[in-house]
């Protein structure tokens, strides 16, 4: 269906070609996943399928791309519109009309389909994607998952044989992502649509793929094969694969279900150990393991692996004076209650993850803490100040926020200028920001334009800018959007370090794996209300949509991340003989 023959792409003015020697084929009716670290040219590959590369973006395309037998060199994107449907990263940028029904019809109108056909297909697509109730809604009022479904629907109505999707679930909460993936699954299974999709959040999508195309590094040849084989060598992989590699399972499991069936041995091996989260975990009961054994094990474990660097540090004592206090906060905007009677206390050294659906009020809560949103009722105090009545210069010494799009914070032409401006804004010693940046992001030159930085680098720069004023309270809104696993791991390490230095960190995120890795505490929001607030382990373990993969695999034991498991197992080996003995004992007790 899609065939790449020795394709190379070089953009104008670029020293190196973005793609080189891309040679693979996507057979009809398969769901193919394109994976690789940031900046390897995944979007370029997708663009080449729809013909936007090079007709729209410029640059030179070498080799040949054919879609359904049409050569993209001779067919413009508009002439491929009836065989290829493309949805880009931001569905909002994709919409031409302003209501759902019109949007679904737009592509068919361009192709000149008969009115009766259009009418029938719109109705069918509304049902297929579960959009029937939204047909009259202005697109601006839809939630993220709904928008993504409308975007997919809008390219489905002309009945394309190929669907090209760039990060369809990255910006979505877990439930909305499931919604979108269920739709894709249906398209592939029931309608035989060929899907080519790039996605960073592999834990969400890899189990649906028939085949994976891995671009290991910029300019490197792609590795193509069944998901399990490619994942075994991939530099990016979801936790379930990571755990599989750790345990040496072959073939690698890709779904939680497969992994659970293989994990019996691992569960036994881990049975007695207390997961090394010192936080809520230690306080919480560990029902899986016998109490006596667990107590003893935890002593051993501490001796073997003292304070591993990869887990949240010790939980701060809650008795310390809170940095920020929110009491019965209500925010009403345009007659909608964005927040209702919310109470929250943040103490130094604690990392809190704020989770919940798109539109649950997470960003509003962060806005209230930074004074961007005025409370309708209730109080917000940050280090004794009321944020919305405090001047910006004062406020940044108390609280710093990295917004959803970190580029919003960056104005200057070069990294150096940005740092100088940040020092001035914060009245900090000249060079403070640059030093922070060197720590967070080594190897960025002074004259780089902030727009040329990758998502992860941008985030690091924005973080450095915010930290220049040394705010004890740090807020992050959706920090892992668009980050690959390596960038995410770096971010996690940075945040862990900041929490250890005594920062209170509040991050709004959909990323359960990140929350599991760094948060001491999770606050769940739904429809503007706090519905759960407690230690990470307790909250996420009990929730089907917020539980990380490792938790699901190793349940009923309470493990959160692969790193935890790895460190426990490493610690185990050093214990030597004693361990095997304990193992038998633990088995006997079960």
């Amino acid at each position, binding site marked *: 269906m899609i065939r790449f023959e020795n394709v190379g792409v070089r953009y104008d003015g670029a020293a190196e070609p973005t793609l080189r020697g891309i040679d693979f084929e996507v057979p009809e009716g398969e769901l193919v996943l394109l994976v690789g670290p940031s900046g390897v040219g995944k979007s370029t590959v997708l663009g080449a399928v729809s013909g936007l590369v090079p007709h729209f973006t410029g640059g030179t395309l070498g080799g040949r791309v054919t879609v359904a037998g049409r050569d993209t060199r001779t067919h413009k994107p508009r002439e491929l519109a009836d065989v290829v449907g493309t949805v880009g990263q931001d569905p909002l940028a994709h919409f031409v009309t302003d209501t759902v029904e019109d949007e679904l019809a737009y592509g068919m109108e*361009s192709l000149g389909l008969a009115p009766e056909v259009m009418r029938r297909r719109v109705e069918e697509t509304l049902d297929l994607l579960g959009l029937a109730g939204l047909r009259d809604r202005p697109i601006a009022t839809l939630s993220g998952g709904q928008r993504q479904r409308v975007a997919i629907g809008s390219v489905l109505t002309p009945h394309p044989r190929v669907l090209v999707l760039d990060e369809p679930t990255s910006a979505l909460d877990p439930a909305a992502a499931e919604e979108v993936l269920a739709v894709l699954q249906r398209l592939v299974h029931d309608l035989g649509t060929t899907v080519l999709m790039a996605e960073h959040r592999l834990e969400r999508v890899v189990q649906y793929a028939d085949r994976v195309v891995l671009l290991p590094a910029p300019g490197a040849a792609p590795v193509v094969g069944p998901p399990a084989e490619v994942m075994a060598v991939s530099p990016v992989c979801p936790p379930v694969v990571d755990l599989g590699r750790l345990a040496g399972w072959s073939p690698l499991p890709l779904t939680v279900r497969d992994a659970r069936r293989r994990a019996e041995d691992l569960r036994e091996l881990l049975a007695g150990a207390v997961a090394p989260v010192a936080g809520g975990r230690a306080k919480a009961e560990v029902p899986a393991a016998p109490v006596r054994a667990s107590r003893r094990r935890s002593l051993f474990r501490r001796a073997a692996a003292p304070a591993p660097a990869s887990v949240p540090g010790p939980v701060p004592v809650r008795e310390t004076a809170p940095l920020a206090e929110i009491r019965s906060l209500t925010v009403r905007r345009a007659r909608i209650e964005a927040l209702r009677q919310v109470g929250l206390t943040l103490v130094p050294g604690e990392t809190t993850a704020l989770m919940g659906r798109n539109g649950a009020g997470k960003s509003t809560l962060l806005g209230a803490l930074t004074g961007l949103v005025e409370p309708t009722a209730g109080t917000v105090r940050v280090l004794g100040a009321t944020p919305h009545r405090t001047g910006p*210069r004062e406020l940044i010494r108390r609280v710093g926020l990295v917004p959803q799009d970190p580029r*919003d914070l960056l104005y200057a032409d070069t990294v150096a200028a940005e740092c100088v401006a940040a020092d001035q804004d914060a009245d900090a010693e000249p060079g403070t920001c640059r030093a922070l940046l060197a720590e967070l992001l080594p190897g960025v030159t002074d004259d780089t334009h902030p727009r040329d930085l990758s998502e992860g680098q941008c985030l690091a720069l924005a973080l450095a800018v915010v930290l220049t004023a040394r705010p004890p309270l740090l807020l992050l809104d959706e920090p892992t959007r668009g980050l690959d696993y390596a960038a995410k791991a770096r971010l996690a390490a940075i945040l862990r370090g900041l929490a250890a230095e005594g920062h209170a960190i509040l991050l709004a995120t959909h990323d359960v794996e990140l929350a599991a890795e760094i948060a001491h505490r999770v606050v769940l929001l739904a429809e503007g209300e706090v519905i759960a607030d407690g230690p990470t382990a307790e909250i996420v373990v009990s929730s089907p949509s917020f539980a990380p993969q490792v938790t699901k695999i190793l349940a009923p034991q309470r493990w959160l991340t692969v790193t935890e498991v790895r460190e426990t197992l490493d610690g185990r080996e050093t214990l030597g003989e004693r361990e095997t003995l304990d193992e038998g004992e633990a088995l006997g007790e079960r």
Partner: protein
Amino acid sequence: MSDGSVLRCGGGAVAGRAPTGAPRGGRRALVHPGAWWLWALALGTAATRTTNPLLLALLIGVSGYVVATHRIATPAARSYAAFVKLGLAVLAVRLVFAVALGSPIPGSHVLLTLPEVPLPHWAQGIRLGGEVTAEALLFAAYDGLKLATLLICVGAANALAAPSRLLKSLPGALYETGVAVVVALTFAPHLIADVRRLRAARRLRGRPDRGLRGLLQVGLPVLEGALERSVALAAAMESRGYGRTATVPARVRRTTAALTLGGLLGVCAGTYGLLTAAGGTYGLPLLLAGVGAALAGLRLGGRRSLRTRYRPDPWGVRAWLVTGSGVAVAALLTLASVRDPEALHPGVVPLVAPGLPLWPAAAVLLGLLPALVVPQAPVSPRNPEEPSP
């Protein structure tokens, strides 16, 4: 998907809200959007025929009432309030100018005297400060109110039918231009949202987020963002088949070009003829021939476009009634302004209280007809169950 046997998939959020056989109002306009625009613009035209504040107030009231009962629930409908504010601003600016720069209206009722700023001789004819008379103020107020009414009528058109829906009704040959205009129109709200977001971001950098300086400094990033978004949208449109054309025989293409160009020339020459005293004989026929040729050119040009229309809005009896009522108001007020200029343009020298001329007022009330003949939209599409982001 091609057969009807598709199952409903897991979108639990929409369960129970599937439309039944009940007649739906929501998006499907009950009246052709063009009719609303003609109605509103006709009311605006009527407003330009008079400076009588009572009649103008009546016009605002009529359009406001219809908007209140028949507005649509799209983001564009919220622009009515913005247009009202704009109208008030125009009125205020007009008054301020009358106070500060004086006015050519001679008046004897001096309200206050501002210190006059002496200006150099090359600025003769311009006055800064000086006497402010009641007559001048009143004249400015009437004039400003006229403009404000016009603006409010345009706002009413926006609130009753989104301009984008109107552009859907353009002939095929003009469609692509229409889309460009729609995209440009939807950009304004996006720009405002961007400005808000970036000003908020300034606060996070510790810079003042209020005031003009703050606004100016976010200008460049906002424009950059707008440019990026338009490129992304253009890419999306391109890949969805925007601009696909059918191959038409060269003969048809040439005829189209000839008809369009000839038609435009005819329109120009005809208009010139009509406006000059000498061309009274050939002006009108030439103009009509030009319009005819241009329309034929457009129609033929539509063949190049492959586009079809999804559920076009029908032009029915209601549309005729709505348009008719607006046009009647405009025609009657025009007639009245010729017949009875005194009543429609109350004098300011000497100062008199404006009276309400009965017949023109009754004519304005004709504009309420749409409120009676068009049923109100049943429910607003706002859905309380699903939070908007």
